[in-house]
């Protein structure tokens, strides 16, 4: 299954827009802040490009929990923001304390196990618990998945996986483009400047660059 081209295009468009919007303060940000800003842009772009799905809503809701993100989200999404954050009927999450729920589940399972005379571990219960555990884990992973039942959870997970894959691909391509453009920008400089800039940069490929640059004199005629 592939993400559609239109999705990728919309994704990239939003992503670049997000970069530009958040790049205002790039110079002053630390690496971590930059990284989180980029990640935020990427996630928002993915969600907005995908449109309206349970996981996109969940994602945007989760992202907008922090106030500073909210303005950013509004900028990016515009009118869609309000639409996407409006809770839809199906995914109305009943507010409940996780601790209480967990405790009650434990009590229930214990009661169930006690009712049936002690027979050791039952494979059925085991199997069911396994599936339940994994379902819970998946629910936690997929944004907005807490309130979904088995089938819709799988559905959303499928969609989410496709979008995540597209996101990863796109970011990789973006990365190579950036690095290529950086190198090309560097190649426009004269040699000494380039050497200086080499020293300044981190990364293996820069080291290789310096090596090549040193080797170069031998090879040029």
């Amino acid at each position, binding site marked *: 299954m592939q993400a559609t081209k239109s999705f990728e295009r919309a994704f990239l468009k939003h992503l670049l827009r997000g970069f530009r919007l958040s790049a205002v303060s790039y110079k002053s940000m630390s690496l971590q802040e930059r990284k989180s800003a980029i990640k935020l842009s990427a996630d928002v772009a993915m969600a907005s490009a995908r449109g309206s799905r349970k996981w996109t809503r969940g994602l945007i809701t989760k992202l907008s929990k922090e106030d500073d993100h909210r303005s950013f989200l509004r900028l990016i999404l515009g009118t869609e923001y309000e639409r996407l954050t409006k809770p839809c009927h199906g995914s109305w999450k009943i507010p409940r304390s996780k601790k209480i729920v967990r405790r009650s589940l434990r009590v229930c399972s214990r009661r169930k196990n006690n009712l049936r005379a002690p027979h050791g571990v039952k494979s059925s219960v085991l199997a069911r618990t396994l599936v339940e555990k994994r379902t819970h884990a998946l629910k936690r992973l997929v944004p907005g998945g807490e309130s979904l039942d088995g089938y819709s959870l799988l559905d959303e997970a499928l969609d989410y996986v496709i979008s*995540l894959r597209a996101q990863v691909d796109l970011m990789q*391509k973006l990365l190579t483009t950036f690095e290529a453009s950086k190198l090309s920008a560097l*190649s426009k400089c004269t040699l000494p400047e380039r050497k200086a800039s080499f020293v300044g940069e981190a990364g293996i490929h820069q080291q290789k660059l310096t090596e090549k640059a040193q080797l170069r004199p031998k090879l040029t005629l």
Partner: protein
Amino acid sequence: MNSGSSDRSPKCFLNQNWDRSVDHISQFGSALGSFMSPQSSFELERGLQRLGHLSEEVPPQSHFMDSSGNSQPWEGNLALAHLDQFPADPGFAERAARFSSFDGQSYGWFSGQFELPGSGKPSTAAIIHSLTASGLQIGHLESNRQIPVSNGLQLKMNCAGPAISREETSLSDPIPASNGKKRKAPSKSKEKDAASPKPSTDPPKVADEEDSDTKRCRSSGKIHEIGIDNVKPKLEQNDGARSNGNDEQKQRKAGNDKPSEPPKDYIHVRARRGQATDSHSLAERVCDECYLEIQMLAFVSVDDSDHSSTVHQVRREKISQRMKLLQDLVPGCSKVTGKAVMLDEIINYVQSLQRQVEFLSMKLATVNPQLDFDNLANLRAKDICGPVPNSAYSPEMSMVSSYADVPQQKDILHSIATNGMDFHCSMNMLDSTGHQDLNAHQACLGGFGDASSQLGFFWEDDLQNIVQMGIGQDQETVGSSHNFHGGTSPAAQMKIEL
């Protein structure tokens, strides 16, 4: 009315999930108990459970022969009730034999098994009636078809229990095949050894042997899965009630007589399985999950005429459809079936993708500060998302044009200077696929690129070319390898010229 209510319950419990089956069974048993002797109600219940679970071997005919007058054979009769429904059905044996190859078509078999009672909607009274009427007939029938029928049944059950764990098979291995029962290996790949031997047509064997058989059968089966566990106390009660000197068959059917072995084996198996699940052994999980899955699927595929089952069926189909799609999506999941394992793989994949996103955003964060956002703005979405297929060069052109003042790179490509080419090309050849290598390639290209400004531009264009080719295709490695070839062929020519 009792028969009415009990009429519904067999269908109900056949159609419900496992964890509710017990309740229905108990309901049914209690309902029937009102018009049957308490003792036989127990047996009836057990028989029904057996019927429901299909986890029992077909009780041997000798059972009928022995105690026709007894109320004891109830359970046996009931267990055979559904068989009774295929009155001397010659097709049954063939069907059973046919379905003996479990390849995911067990559903049909199960539905076939259940449909007769379901479709006929026999009241329990009717079942009992027909049983008494044709009890011996059934015995006859059974004796004729013992092997194929029970084979089919047994196989079904064996197949229904998926990859029975090695521990279990090791337990079941000692089961005397010496009874003269053939044990067909289940055809499914996941199947381990068939756990339980088929019931024998032979007259009651030595009690021990029978008992040990059943014990092994019990312990080795995942067959005695959900609900048998619940049945056990009743069974054991009953066995205690009845004298052990009675029919071995009865004891056998009673199932879990408590010699020391089977409980031990049972616990042994369970403990092992528990351990295995703790350590997340894949085989164990496959076992459990496939078993559960198959059980549920078998249950659900019952009786199309019932609305709830169709709903379940549809839902089940949807879920399995989604699972299949996810299987295609998640790499390395083609061989895996079973819900828990699949879910596990999906979870791992999602986690890895999310981590990848984090990592890439970190990388972008390192790259970004040096970026000139004007250039960024120049990057059109089309450039990065992939070129129009027919024109491989157009994105290159557009990309290059965004970097301005570049002479026609095609000419430059052909007018390659020798300096650095050999080294560069050898570097190309050394560089294998991979993202980092692409960067290195670009790096060395860039490094070599400034022999002359023209060459520099060439390398830049070549770089763009490479980058574009890399970006334009889904796999950068493919793109880079293309460029290797494209780059090396003129280089090779150059070498030859030299």
